[in-house]
């Protein structure tokens, strides 16, 4: 299978005063269709910058991002991006937030409402359709954001530490739900995290990034699905993979 999303010799430099701050240097990475790729790295290794450029929100300083061999020059609807922070419109309730991508696409009101209600149900927010984001807990806002992204019907999902701000229990629940939503959908996922366990639990393939986006490790994860967090923790293969990742991350310093 060819790469859906590919970055080649990607470099990003931010300007601060007379200094250039290098966030990412010469990173090349191909994401295969239908694959769940987790990008693992410590904070500040350029993970978010990478996603910002993959999504087309941020132009690279040099290098290129291509989507199905076409250069990415701006955001495109085939690529959905769930950012670290919540970007639900605070003045819209849950359903109207989920409807938004369809509104922009020009889907008519009735179909929009139906599909939004269905998505709200799929992420488990039924009964909260009429709530405003500020009336929801952090986990519920994440679910709503997820539903909104899915409403755009993207082929590739970019997720930037989507569950980073949640407590461990809720994170488990949402990880399982993400997998449930992804399986059989044929969508490609790039999931950025700093949590080794999360990366192993979710990914078909793990890319470990070091400073300024140096690829330290790129490995297929052959753990059988469905993966259960409790069972995995005592699985010797999982433990050895975990050790390998920990060592790779330590090397990053």
């Amino acid at each position, binding site marked *: 299978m060819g790469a859906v999303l590919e970055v080649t010799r990607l470099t990003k430099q931010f300007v601060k005063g007379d200094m250039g701050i290098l966030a990412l240097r010469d990173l090349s990475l191909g994401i295969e269709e239908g694959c769940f790729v987790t990008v693992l790295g410590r904070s500040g290794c350029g993970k978010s910058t990478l996603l910002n450029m993959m999504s087309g929100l941020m132009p690279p300083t040099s290098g290129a991002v291509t989507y199905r061999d076409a250069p990415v020059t*701006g955001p495109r609807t085939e690529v959905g991006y769930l950012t670290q922070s919540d970007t639900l419109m605070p003045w819209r309730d849950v359903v109207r937030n989920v409807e*938004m991508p369809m509104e*922009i696409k020009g889907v008519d009101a009735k179909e929009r409402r139906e599909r939004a209600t269905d998505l709200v149900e799929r992420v488990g927010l039924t009964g909260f359709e009429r709530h405003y984001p500020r009336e929801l807990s952090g986990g519920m806002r994440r679910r709503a954001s997820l539903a909104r992204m899915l409403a755009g019907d993207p082929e590739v999902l970019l997720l930037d530490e989507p569950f980073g701000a949640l407590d461990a229990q809720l994170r488990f629940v949402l990880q399982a739900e993400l997998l449930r939503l992804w399986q059989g959908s044929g969508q490609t996922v790039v999931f950025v995290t700093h949590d080794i366990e999360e990366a192993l639990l979710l990914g078909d393939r793990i890319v470990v990034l070091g400073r300024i986006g140096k690829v330290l490790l790129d490995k297929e994860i052959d753990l059988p699905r469905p993966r259960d967090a409790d069972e995995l923790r005592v699985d010797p293969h999982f433990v050895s993979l975990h050790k390998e990742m920990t060592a790779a991350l330590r090397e990053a310093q």
Partner: protein
Amino acid sequence: MKTVDEQKTVNAERTTGQSVTVPLNRGWWEKHGRTVVVWGGRLVLSVVLLVAWQLCAGRVFDLTFTSRPLDVARRLGDWQRDGLLWSNTWVTLKEVLLGFALGASTGAVTGFVLASLPTFYRVVDPFIVALYSLPKVALAPLFIVWFGIGLQMKVLLAAVTVFFLVFLNTAVGVREVDRGLIDAVRLMGGRRRDVVLKVVLPASMTGLLTGLKVAVPYSLIGAVIGELVASNRGLGYLISDAAANFDTAGVFATLVVLSVIATVLNLFVSLIDRRANRWKPLEGRK
């Protein structure tokens, strides 16, 4: 057997693992007690102040300077009979409303447009601040030369005052729009038009409404100052006329009418505010 309510609660718990709503059986006093206390307090306060004023006037203070609540009420009654009250109030009200509408609409539009052009905004910013800081009273003589002493001049004086307040607050609202929200719309394939209509416009509403709220008293100031400077009608004219005749009851009567107008206008703006800001948490509403 579970009741229907319990069943619902259980469902909500299962689907979200979070907040569960429970019906409360609160008594009338628990629900309305605070409101009653607040309004009762307001009533008591106004009665105490009015009685104290009535009793002290003529004994502690000189009647010529302070008048008395009953005299003020009597004066309002007299004016009402003569038709003076309504005709003059209407003149001022018209100036205030027209001035407010003109200033608020131009202020909102200009604020929205200018703030969307950041570089241009930076160019004109110092000029705007200079004009804003100018005491608007100082413009009155110029406006008289330009527009005469009729309705126009007072409307424009009120409008100029309102304009800057609404303009500056709207501009702040537009400029402080969360970058993340704009990016979210771009990710959905939204164009500039979508960003403006679906993010910038609703986000700037908060600033606009703050501007409107602040501007209400200023529209009154504009109109009344205009009347004080030059006119033969309106509440400002009534004040200056009464004061010139040492008729303090007349001055106070006019002030009462002015504060009633201000209260009604404020109420109106806060109604719009509540409607537009439903999405805000209760404690965030002012």
